[in-house]
C-alpha cells in the first residue's frame, strides 16, 4: 500500500477570500452558498458559527460577522500558488479539491530524512511563499491521509485501519449513506468496516462498497499526479534580420514544422495561433489567427508566411518612399492601432515566436459526410484566410441573422474564422415584413419629404401624419411619390437614455418604379434602405 501525504489548508474558502479579496480572515468570517454557511474562520467558530447555519441565524449569533459569497472558481484560483509551492519541493501533486493536495510520501520522506521532516518542510515552505496556513498528514492511502491532515497526525505504516476505526462515519462525505448507517446503528468507520464487504455491496451498491474499502483503510487508488503544463511555444532568433519574404517563408516553414511536431508529440493540435515578432527597432508585433478546424503543419506555415509577408511588405513600402517618408516613432502603435493608415513599417524581423493558443486534444478531424466540409470548404478557407493576411482579420466577414427591427439591425457581421453564433429564430415584434431592401446604406442618407403644398411632412406623438407625402428630394433631385405606407413606429431602449431610439418608418414608391424605406427621427428624414 502506498504512503500518501495530504497537505490541507483549514477553512480554505475563507483563506482564499482573504488572499484575493482582502477579507480580514482573523475576524469572524463566514462563506455562504445558497444562504447556508459552508465555511467559517476560527474566530467565527468560537462565536458559535457552524456549517449549515442560515445567514440570519449566523448573524444573530455573531452580529459583526463578515459574510462572503461562495465562489469555487476563486477557491481553485487561489489554490494554484499553493500547488506550485508544493511542486517546488515534491513533484507529482494531485489536487484533491481546492484546499487539499496529495503527494506520494515516499520520495520527500527519503529526501528530507523522515515523513515528519518532509511534512514540516512543506508546510513551512507554503507558509513562507504563500502566507497560507497548512497542515500535513501521512497515512496509507489518500482518504486516510486527508483525515490525518485535519488532525496534523502521522499515521505509522500499517496502523491506518486502527486510526480510521475511531472516526465518525460523517468523514465519508456521502450524506445518504451516512444517514442510513446512523439509523442502522453504525457510528464509526471501524463499525462500518467490520461489516462483510459482499453484503455492503449487495445491500448498498457500488458507491457504498467503495466507501467501505476507504473505511477499512484499503484505499488502493494510485495518485493521479498533476503534470506541469508542457511548454509548447517555439521561437527562433535570427542573426541576420529577415528582410525578404522568401527568407521569411523559409523560416516560417521550419518553425511551423517544429511547432507541429511538438504539438503532435503531446497528442495536441491548436485552433488559434499567435504569431509574435520582434523587429530590429525593438517593436513587438503580435497577431492571432483563428481556425475553426485544426491547424496542420502546412496551415501553420501558411499563416506565418502571410503574416510575415504583410509585416515585411508594409515596411518595404515605407522604405521605397525614401527618407522623406514619416519616420515611425512608435511603430508598434502605428502598425497595430491604424493598420490601414499610411502603415509605417516596423523594420526587419530579428526574433519570431509561435504561441499555440486554444490547444485541443487531437483526435482526428471529422469531415462532413456529404463533402460539405471537404475540399470546397478548404479551398474557400485558404483563399479567405489569404485575404485576411492582406487586409487584417476583421476585413473578411460573414453575416449572421440577428434579432432587430430594421434591416441594418438584423445583421451581425462575424470575422471569417470565428465561430458563427446560431441565427436568431425568435419572432421580433415591429420587424419590417419581407421582402427586405436589397441595398442598405451604411450611413442613412438625408432626404426631404414634402406634401402636396410643399410643407415638410411630420408625424405627431399620436402617429398622425401631417400630410400625405407627395415629393421626395435628395440634393437637387426631386421625384414624385406614387405610393406610400406608414408610419410604423419603433421606440427602442427607451430605458437607456444614450441608446434609446424613437423613430417611424415609411415605405414609399416613386412614380418611376423605385421604392425606398424611409425613417423619420427627430424631425429628419433619411433613406435607410433602397428596394433596389
Amino acid at each position: 500500500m502506498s504512503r500518501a501525504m495530504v497537505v490541507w489548508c483549514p477553512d480554505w474558502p475563507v483563506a482564499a477570500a482573504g488572499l484575493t479579496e482582502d477579507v480580514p480572515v482573523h475576524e469572524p468570517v463566514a462563506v455562504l452558498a445558497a444562504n447556508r454557511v459552508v465555511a467559517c474562520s476560527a474566530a467565527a467558530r468560537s462565536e458559535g458559527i457552524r456549517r449549515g447555519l442560515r445567514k440570519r441565524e449566523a448573524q444573530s449569533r455573531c452580529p459583526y460577522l463578515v459574510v462572503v459569497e461562495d465562489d469555487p472558481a476563486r477557491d481553485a484560483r487561489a489554490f494554484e500558488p499553493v500547488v506550485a509551492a508544493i511542486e517546488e519541493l515534491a513533484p507529482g501533486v494531485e489536487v484533491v479539491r481546492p484546499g487539499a493536495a496529495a503527494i506520494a510520501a515516499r520520495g520527500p520522506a527519503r529526501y528530507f530524512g523522515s515523513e515528519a521532516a518532509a511534512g514540516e518542510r512543506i508546510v513551512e515552505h507554503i507558509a513562507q511563499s504563500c502566507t497560507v496556513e497548512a497542515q500535513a498528514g501521512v497515512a496509507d492511502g489518500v482518504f486516510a491521509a486527508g483525515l490525518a491532515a485535519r488532525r496534523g497526525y502521522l499515521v505509522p505504516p500499517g496502523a491506518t485501519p486502527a486510526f480510521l476505526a475511531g472516526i465518525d462515519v460523517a468523514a465519508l462525505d456521502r450524506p445518504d449513506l451516512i444517514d442510513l448507517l446512523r439509523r442502522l446503528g453504525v457510528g464509526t468507520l471501524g463499525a462500518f468496516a467490520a461489516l462483510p464487504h459482499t453484503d455492503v455491496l449487495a445491500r448498498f451498491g457500488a458507491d457504498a462498497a467503495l466507501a467501505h474499502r476507504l473505511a477499512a483503510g484499503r484505499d488502493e487508488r494510485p495518485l493521479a499526479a498533476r503534470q506541469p503544463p508542457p511548454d509548447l511555444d517555439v521561437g527562433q532568433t535570427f542573426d541576420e534580420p529577415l528582410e525578404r519574404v522568401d527568407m521569411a517563408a523559409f523560416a516560417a516553414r521550419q518553425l511551423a514544422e517544429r511547432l507541429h511536431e511538438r504539438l503532435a508529440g503531446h497528442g495536441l493540435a491548436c485552433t488559434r495561433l499567435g504569431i509574435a515578432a520582434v523587429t530590429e527597432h525593438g517593436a513587438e508585433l503580435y497577431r492571432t489567427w483563428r481556425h475553426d478546424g485544426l491547424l496542420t503543419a502546412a496551415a501553420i506555415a501558411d499563416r506565418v508566411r502571410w503574416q510575415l509577408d504583410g509585416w515585411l511588405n508594409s515596411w518595404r513600402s515605407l522604405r521605397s518612399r525614401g527618407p522623406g517618408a514619416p519616420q515611425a516613432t512608435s511603430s508598434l502603435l502605428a502598425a497595430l492601432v491604424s493598420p490601414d493608415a499610411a502603415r509605417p513599417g516596423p523594420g526587419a524581423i530579428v526574433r519570431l515566436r509561435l504561441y499555440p493558443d486554444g490547444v485541443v486534444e487531437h483526435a482526428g478531424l471529422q469531415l462532413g459526410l456529404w463533402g460539405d466540409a471537404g475540399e470546397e470548404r478548404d479551398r474557400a478557407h485558404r483563399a479567405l484566410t489569404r485575404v485576411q493576411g492582406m487586409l487584417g482579420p476583421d476585413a473578411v466577414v460573414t453575416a449572421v441573422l440577428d434579432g432587430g427591427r430594421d434591416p441594418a439591425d438584423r445583421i451581425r457581421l462575424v470575422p471569417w474564422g470565428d465561430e458563427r453564433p446560431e441565427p436568431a429564430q425568435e419572432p421580433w415584434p415591429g420587424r419590417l415584413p419581407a421582402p427586405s431592401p436589397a441595398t442598405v446604406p451604411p450611413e442613412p442618407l438625408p432626404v426631404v419629404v414634402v406634401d402636396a403644398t410643399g410643407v415638410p411632412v411630420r408625424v405627431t406623438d399620436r402617429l398622425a401624419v401631417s400630410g400625405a407625402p407627395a415629393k421626395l428630394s435628395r440634393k437637387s433631385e426631386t421625384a414624385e411619390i406614387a405610393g406610400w405606407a406608414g408610419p410604423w413606429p419603433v421606440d427602442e431602449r427607451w430605458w437607456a437614455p444614450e441608446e434609446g431610439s424613437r423613430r417611424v418608418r415609411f415605405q414609399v414608391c416613386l412614380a418611376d418604379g423605385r421604392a425606398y424605406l424611409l425613417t423619420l427621427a427627430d424631425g429628419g428624414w433619411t433613406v435607410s434602405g433602397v428596394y433596389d
Partner: protein
Amino acid sequence: VADIVALRSRPGPGGGRLAALVRAHGLTGLVGPADSYAVEPDGVRERVLPVLPELRGLLPAGGLRRGSTVAVAPRGSFGATSVLLALLAAASAAGSWCAVVGMPALGLVAAAEFGIALDRLALVPEPGPEWPAVVAALLDGLDVVVAAPPGPIAAPLAGRLAARARQRGSVLVPYGSWSGADVVLEAVGGRWAGLDRGRGRLSRRELVISRRGRGAAALPRQATLWLPRPLVEPEPEVLPAPLLEAVG
C-alpha cells in the same frame, strides 16, 4: 424551353425535331462539346453552377459556367442589386461558396430571403487599394466572386482578372462598368406592387432583366422575374445537360 424538355423526356427518335426546336428558340448557345457538361474527375465540381429557372435563358450555358465573366450593370438605381442576388441565389443554395468584394451597402437580410446561404457568403466590404489583389486571391478559392470596382477599371486589369477566373474555374461577377464580360445583365424595368397612398406594403415586384454580351450571348434577350419567388419550386431542377444526347 418547356416544349424541348417535354420532347426530350419522350423516348424514341426525335433528335431532328429537337434540333430544329432548339434552333427556333435560339438556344443554340446551349449546344457545346459534350464534355463541357460532364462531371470532372473529382466528381464534385460541375462545370455549370445552377441559376434560377427564369434566368436560365439569359445565360448561354443555362447557368453560371465556370471560368466565365457575367457582369451585372447598375443602370440608374433600380433593380441591379436584386439581379445580382437573384443570380447568386440558386448557386449558393446548391452549395457553392460566394464572395462579395466592395459592397458595404449590400442588404444581407434580402440576400438571405433570396435563399443565399449566409454561412457560405464571405464579404470584404472595404478592400481598399488592394482591390485587384483581393479579387484575384478570392478567385483562387471561391466559386463565385462578386467584385464591385471602386472606380473605372482599366481594360488590361479586367482582362487579367477574367483570365484568372478562367484558369481557376471560378465565376467572376463584376458589379459595375466592365469591359470584356461574356454576358452583361441589366435591370431594364419593372415595378413594385402592393403600395397604395397610405395603405398596404411593398409585397411583390416585377423585374425585367435584359442581357447583352458577346459570342453566344450577343443576341439580346429579356426575362421577367417576379419577386419574392414562391417558396415551392414549381418545376423540378432541369439542367440542359441531357439535351445534348438527343441533339447529338
